C-alpha cells in the first residue's frame, strides 16, 4: 500500500499540485491542523497530569524533619543494661508516630568499633530488620527478640538467628548540659556495625546488598 503512494518530488505543496497551496508552503494545512490539535491536547493533558504525578511521587524526594529529642539525664542510663525510651519519630499523628528505642551508655570494652567512638550512648531502634515488627529486649537472655517471625539479636543489635538480614538500626545520640539527646532519624549498620544511611527493613547491607538497595533521597544519614 505504501509502495503505491506517489513519491513526493518536492517539499513544496505547490509543486506537489495540492489544491489551494500557497507559494513557499511545505506542509499541507490539513496536516498542520492535525499536528496543532494533537499538540494542544497533549499540552492540556500534561498541564494536569504532570503536576498530579509530581504530587504523588514528591514525597520520595522529601526528607522529613527529624530533630534532637531529650530522653533524660545522663545518670538514667547505665553501661550494662538497656533502658527503653519512647521517641516521636513522626510528629502530629499521635501514637502512630511514636517508636521505642533501647538506650545504654557506650561501653568501650564491648563497643569497640571505631564508628561508635563519637557516640556517647548507644540507642538501638526497635524496628526489626526483617519486615519491621517491634522487637523487645529480653533482659534474662540478653537478646532482642522479635514477636512476628522470631528474629533474635544480641546486645549490640547484631543478628543471632531468624530471618533478619542485618543488625538493628540505631539512633545518633549526644549529651547537652547533662541531658542525653537522641536524633529521631535512624541510621542503618551492616554486620560489621559500619554505618549506612537509613534503609527500610529487609534490605541487607553486606556485600552486594548495599548496591541492590541504594540509599534514598528521603532518608539520609544525619
Amino acid at each position, binding site marked *: 500500500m505504501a509502495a503505491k503512494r506517489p513519491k513526493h518530488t518536492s517539499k513544496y505543496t505547490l509543486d506537489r499540485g495540492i489544491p489551494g497551496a500557497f507559494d513557499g508552503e511545505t506542509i499541507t494545512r490539513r496536516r498542520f491542523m492535525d499536528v496543532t490539535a494533537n499538540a494542544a491536547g497533549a499540552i492540556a493533558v500534561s498541564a494536569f497530569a504532570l503536576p498530579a504525578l509530581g504530587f504523588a511521587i514528591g*514525597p520520595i524526594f*522529601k526528607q522529613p524533619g527529624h530533630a534532637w529529642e531529650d530522653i533524660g539525664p545522663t545518670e538514667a542510663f547505665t553501661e550494662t543494661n538497656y533502658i527503653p525510651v519512647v521517641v516521636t519519630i513522626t510528629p502530629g499523628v499521635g501514637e*502512630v508516630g511514636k517508636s521505642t528505642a533501647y538506650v545504654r551508655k557506650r561501653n568501650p570494652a564491648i563497643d569497640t568499633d571505631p564508628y561508635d567512638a563519637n557516640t556517647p550512648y548507644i540507642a538501638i531502634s526497635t524496628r526489626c530488620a526483617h519486615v519491621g515488627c517491634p522487637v523487645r529486649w529480653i533482659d534474662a537472655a540478653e537478646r532482642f527478640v522479635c514477636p512476628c517471625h522470631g528474629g533474635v539479636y544480641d546486645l549490640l543489635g547484631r543478628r543471632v538467628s531468624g530471618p533478619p538480614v542485618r543488625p538493628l538500626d540505631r539512633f545518633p545520640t549526644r549529651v547537652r548540659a547533662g541531658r542525653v539527646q537522641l536524633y529521631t532519624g535512624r541510621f542503618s549498620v551492616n554486620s560489621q556495625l559500619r554505618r549506612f544511611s537509613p534503609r*527500610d527493613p*529487609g*534490605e541487607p547491607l553486606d556485600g552486594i546488598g548495599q548496591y541492590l*538497595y541504594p540509599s*534514598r533521597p*528521603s532518608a539520609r544519614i544525619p
Partner: protein
Amino acid sequence: MAKRPAPPLPSALRAPPPRPGEANGRPTAADRTKEAGIAVVDWLDERTSLSGAGRWLMFRKVPKGTNWYYTLGSATLFAFLSQAVTGVFLAMFYRPDASGGAYESIRHITNDVFLGQFVRGMHLWGASVMVVLVFLHMGRTFLFGAYKYPRELNWVIGVTLLILTMVMALTGYLLPFDDRAYWATIVANNITATGPLIGPYLGDFLRAGPEFTATTLSRFYAIHMLLVPGAIAALIGAHLYLVTKLGTTAPPWSKVDRRPELSETEV
C-alpha cells in the same frame, strides 16, 4: 366427513360478552400503559440504537454442557458490586485521620450507626469472598482451557483484575487503623521495599516518605476508594466485552457437534 358443530358450552365457561367501551376499538387503561412503555423504549432506541447492543449482549449462543461453574465470573462481579455499594456508604462515615479519628470513626460505624455493623460486615467479609471467587473463577478458566486462543487477552485482563483485587485487599486492610491494620501495613510496605534497586523507592512512594505518616493513611484511602475501583470497573467492562464478543468455551469433555444449523451466526 363434515365436521359437526361443537356442543354449546355452559354459560359459566363461555367468554363474557364485551363490556361497553372495550369492543369499540378504544384502548383500555392497561393497553395505554403498555403503549406508553413501548413508546418510551422506542424513543430511547431511536436515539441510541441500544436495543441492538442489548440483544448482542443478552441473546448469545451458549455451548452445550454449560454448567454452574460458568457462573463464577458473574458471582465475582456481584461480589465487586456489593463491595462498591457498601464501600460508598461506609465512606459517608469513615474519616482517614491517622491520629485516632480513623479508628474512632470505624468504632462509630460498628457500634452507633443504624445497620453500620451489618454494612461494615458485608464489606469486610465480602472482601474475602471476592478474593476467593476470583481464584475459583480463575481456576475454572484454567482447568477448562478457556484461556486459550482467541481468549488470551481476556486472561491477561483477568490477571490484572486479580492483582487489582489484591491491591484493594491490601489498601483496605489499613483503613480500620487498629494495631493489626497498622502492623500488617508496616510489614507489607517493608516487603515492597525489599525489591532490589527500585524497591526502596516503591516503598517510599507507597508510604509517602521514609516513615509512616498521616499521608500514608490518606494515600491508601485514595487508592482504595478512587484509583483502583475505577480501574477495576473499566477492566471489568473490557473483560465482559471480550466474553460477549468471543463467547464462552464449551466444557473440555463435550464433543464437537457438526450439525450445520449450529454454525449459523444469526440467532
